[in-house]
């Protein structure tokens, strides 16, 4: 579609688009939508999908070493779910006219982003607990409002994702609970994981509101429903209560409930580190991308084979029909 001068159809489309937003209704794939809205959605949904796919790696790292067969099953099912979530999201993004191949290429070439938390290493079993409890917990806080995103396919994908995510958070919490009630070494392992994942999980909500350029527009479009800081504060409040059940502590002595604002507050976060990791200078960035690239490249001959076979079968079938 070329947009040289706003045509009559565009004007009507724009009017309809605004009407949909005003009614808090949903935009569907074939509706007219502003190019910026489309671009913003493709960026956000594909980043989200990439995060699911790259996010498989730090957890897959422990599947073969899981310390009980029950935990192994659970972790395997969870990592598999993440592949599923990536697929739901890629297909939502594809309805906007960007193919999965294009998105995957952007990911392996390093031009697309994904949640920077997955660039941290999982060094102990307790990290499986901390990721489930805090990283998935933060993701759920972020994602539940997205079920009402103005773009229909995104919202529907998120409904499916959220339904499945709640098992992820609970299993993580249980891993930590078991460790916290275990031997002193296990307990120390749990506390260490909570210490390491706390700040990165808070930073998953994105930069502070006064430094988040895309947020305002995203909220005006009914994609985002709450600001980064609002969600982050709400999340900290949940952690404070839940960590008590674990009998562990948060590595932040400035966490408090502000009676005036009626909001939870937390200590300062190292946004310089966040930017460094986001810019590719985190502990595992190169490793994560390399793993995705090699899986994709090593699989090329398989994908080609299946396509070639499908073409041959279709040709054979066509011949039979013609005969």
């Amino acid at each position, binding site marked *: 579609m070329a947009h040289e001068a706003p045509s009559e159809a565009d004007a009507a489309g724009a009017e309809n688009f605004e009407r949909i937003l005003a009614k808090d209704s949903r935009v569907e794939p074939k509706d007219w939508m502003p190019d910026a809205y489309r671009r913003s959605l493709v960026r956000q949904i594909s980043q989200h999908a990439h995060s699911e796919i790259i996010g498989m790696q730090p957890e897959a790292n422990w599947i073969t070493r899981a310390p009980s067969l029950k935990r192994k099953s659970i972790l395997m099912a969870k990592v598999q779910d993440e592949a*599923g979530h990536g697929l739901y999201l890629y297909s939502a993004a594809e309805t906007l006219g960007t*193919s999965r191949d294009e998105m995957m290429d952007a990911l392996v070439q390093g031009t697309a982003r994904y949640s920077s938390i997955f660039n941290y290493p999982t060094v102990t079993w307790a990290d499986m607990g901390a990721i489930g409890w805090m990283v998935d917990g933060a993701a759920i806080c972020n994602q539940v409002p997205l079920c009402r995103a103005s773009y229909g396919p995104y919202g*529907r994908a998120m409904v499916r994702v959220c339904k499945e995510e709640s098992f992820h958070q609970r299993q993580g919490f249980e891993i930590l609970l078991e460790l916290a009630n275990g031997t002193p070494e296990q307990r120390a392992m749990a506390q260490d994981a909570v210490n390491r994942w706390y700040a990165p999980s808070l930073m998953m909500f994105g930069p502070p509101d006064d430094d988040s350029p895309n947020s305002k527009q995203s909220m005006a479009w009914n994609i985002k429903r709450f600001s980064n800081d609002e969600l982050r504060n709400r999340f900290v409040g949940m952690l404070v209560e839940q960590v008590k059940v674990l009998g562990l502590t948060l590595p932040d002595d400035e966490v408090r409930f502000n009676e005036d604002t009626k909001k939870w507050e937390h200590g300062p976060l190292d946004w310089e580190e966040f930017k460094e990791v986001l810019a590719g200078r985190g502990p595992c960035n190169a490793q994560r991308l390399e793993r995705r690239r090699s899986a994709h490249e090593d699989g090329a001959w398989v994908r*080609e084979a299946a*396509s070639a076979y499908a073409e041959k079968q*279709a040709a054979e079938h066509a011949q039979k029909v013609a005969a």
Partner: protein
Amino acid sequence: MSPQESTESTTPAPGEGGHRWPLWEVFVRSSRGLSHVHAGSLHAPDAAMALRNARDLYTRRNEGVSIWVVPSDAIAASDPDAKGAFFESPQGKDYRHATYYTKSEGVKHL
């Protein structure tokens, strides 16, 4: 207008580019007696694999008893821009609905 007027697809055609697996739309029947409902989409080289991928992706938690897969490009859709004209006719014809007939309210078994 005919529904075929708006079949332009936003997805790559099956087989295009040689190695690109085409996109399939997945419909799942959650239990006997209910219709198949659109669940989402996926990529697969052919129908046989699309069905299997759909089984793995969309029914991991007992969500279905039957699955349809349809090449995305085989779906013809009504034109959203013609919404007004296409769906205007039923508007205002409230006599098609039982609620229009108020005088019979209170009469049993009616």
